[in-house]
């Protein structure tokens, strides 16, 4: 995968197929970017499990926080890394040791570690780096257009309302977010 520019279909497939996200570096501070993403992805119908040793045993947005990936008692589809780029290597090792293995390693905006990515890809995982799942979801569903953001795509198809609401758009394509 060319990690400088991802095809929309690649990102869409990941957001479409993953249901359970472990968010490493999730913050309980309500104005931190990680809290925003956690809240947004929960609203979009994903199960998001915060990982943060400092908050282990507490809840963030009603979700139990775990100290490490290996403590999570259920299978996860995607690991979202909200940590410094150097930390990604160890997190990928932990993720690869999980049984069953997650399908996707996602590194947040400004997080990029090409060695960790290569390792995960060699093990058959998909990798996204230096991107935010909230922004990508917002872009592909069309919601982010309300903020004047250039989605770099055009379409003559009607956006898909999601969740029975009127200010929430979904990914369409078979996605069952609620």
């Amino acid at each position, binding site marked *: 995968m060319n990690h400088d520019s991802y095809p929309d*279909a690649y990102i869409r497939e990941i957001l479409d197929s993953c249901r359970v996200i472990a968010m490493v570096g999730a913050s309980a501070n309500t*104005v931190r970017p990680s809290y925003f993403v956690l809240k947004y992805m929960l609203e979009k119908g994903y199960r998001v499990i915060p990982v943060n040793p400092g908050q282990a045993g507490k809840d963030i947005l009603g979700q139990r926080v775990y100290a490490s990936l290996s403590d999570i008692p259920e299978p996860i589809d995607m690991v979202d890394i909200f940590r410094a780029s150097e930390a990604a290597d160890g997190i990928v090792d932990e993720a690869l040791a999980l049984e069953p293995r997650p399908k996707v390693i996602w590194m947040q905006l400004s997080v990029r570690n090409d060695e960790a990515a290569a390792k995960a890809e060699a093990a058959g995982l998909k990798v996204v780096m230096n991107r935010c799942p909230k922004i990508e979801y917002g872009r592909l569903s069309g919601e*982010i257009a309300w*903020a*004047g953001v250039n989605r770099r795509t*055009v379409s003559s*198809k009607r956006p*898909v309302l999601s969740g029975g609401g009127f*200010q*929430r758009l979904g990914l369409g394509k078979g996605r069952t977010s609620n």
Partner: protein
Amino acid sequence: MSEDHVPGFNTLSIHAGAQPDPTTGARATPIYQTTSFVFEDVDHAASLFGLQAFGNIYTRIGNPTCAVLEERVAALEGGTAALAVASGHAAQLIVMHTLLQPGDEFIAGTQLYGGSINQFNHAFKKFDWHVAWADSTDVSSFEKAVTPKTKAIFIESVANPGGVVVDIEGIAQVARRAGVPLIVDNTLASPYLCRPFEHGADIVVHSATKFLGGHGNSIGGVIVDGGTFNWMREGRYPTLSEPCESYQGMVLGETFGNFAFAIACRVLGLRDLGAALSPFNAFLLVTGIETLSLRMDRHCANAVAVAEFLSSHPKVAWVSYSGLPGDRYHALQQKYCPKGGGAVFTFGVKGGYDAGVKVVSNVQLFSHLANIGDTRSLIIHPASTTHRQLSDQQKTSAGAGPDVIRVSIGIEDKEDIIADLDQALASA
């Protein structure tokens, strides 16, 4: 069409930002003429106010019709995001309000719309923001004007009124070395003729009133974020890099990635200064943009024909149009605006101030008014109107001396435009 195919300029002019309406399927962009939007529930409202969810709250901060204009202009300029506001001047105010603190300085090229010179010299002084002037035709004058307090550089790509084409890349390098963003007012060129981000600009502003809307029916402005500037480095832009008190300590520059500047302009500048665009105007501007390239091609072709006619007219002392081979700015026009030099240029009438006044009084097809970028041909004598409040020296350095006439060539038949000028000059 696959999602990753990059659409061309004409396709983006028509489609960017505008999908069929999600609830009704309406294909043209609906005019969401409403002040406010109901929340789905209390949580949803809290998420919207906390900037945690995307959505609409109140039209002063955002509106789906205005959003189509925003995304469309962002796409045409190649920026990451945009913000539509009430006017070109509001765009400039909000950009500077986001960048500057009291006591800060910015550098601006003197070859600017007269209203911008006023705004910078007088209105901005009340905010304790200080403009240092440089010569847009001399890159080294920008270098010399840089001080430790400099926070931004502002130029017009094609300057009003003289049609001067500015060396954007040269000035962008000065901005780079000074560690400040380059703001380019791209009003006269429009993104069809010039794309400042490709030459090193960080922020583009527009008076959408002009060529974007193109029909002389709506005042509006747009701010486009190039997504290129690192606001977090060195803490020189605290609006973006410091915790924001009115959002519970959120750091906007860290939360909104490469479109943080556009978001800051919206959630602070527009929210607090209040210069919102009406959805109806946004609709007219969006509709205008659909034909931008067609209009600009005709504007430019007509302008060349009119400039050539004037060049050989016995009552005309000089013509300043970068689209004419031999013009002082022709080489820069070929580099930055290869599709054409735009529709706005100046010429000098023999007989000075009085002759200038006569020409604008005698026209029959041209409209004598203070605007540019209309389908109609427009004419003005800047010294007696738009630039009247400037000193003689400022007038001359802004390209608005006593004999100067500014025209904005419309998209009528060029023979009719030329005939009207011919008869107006004959009686001058």
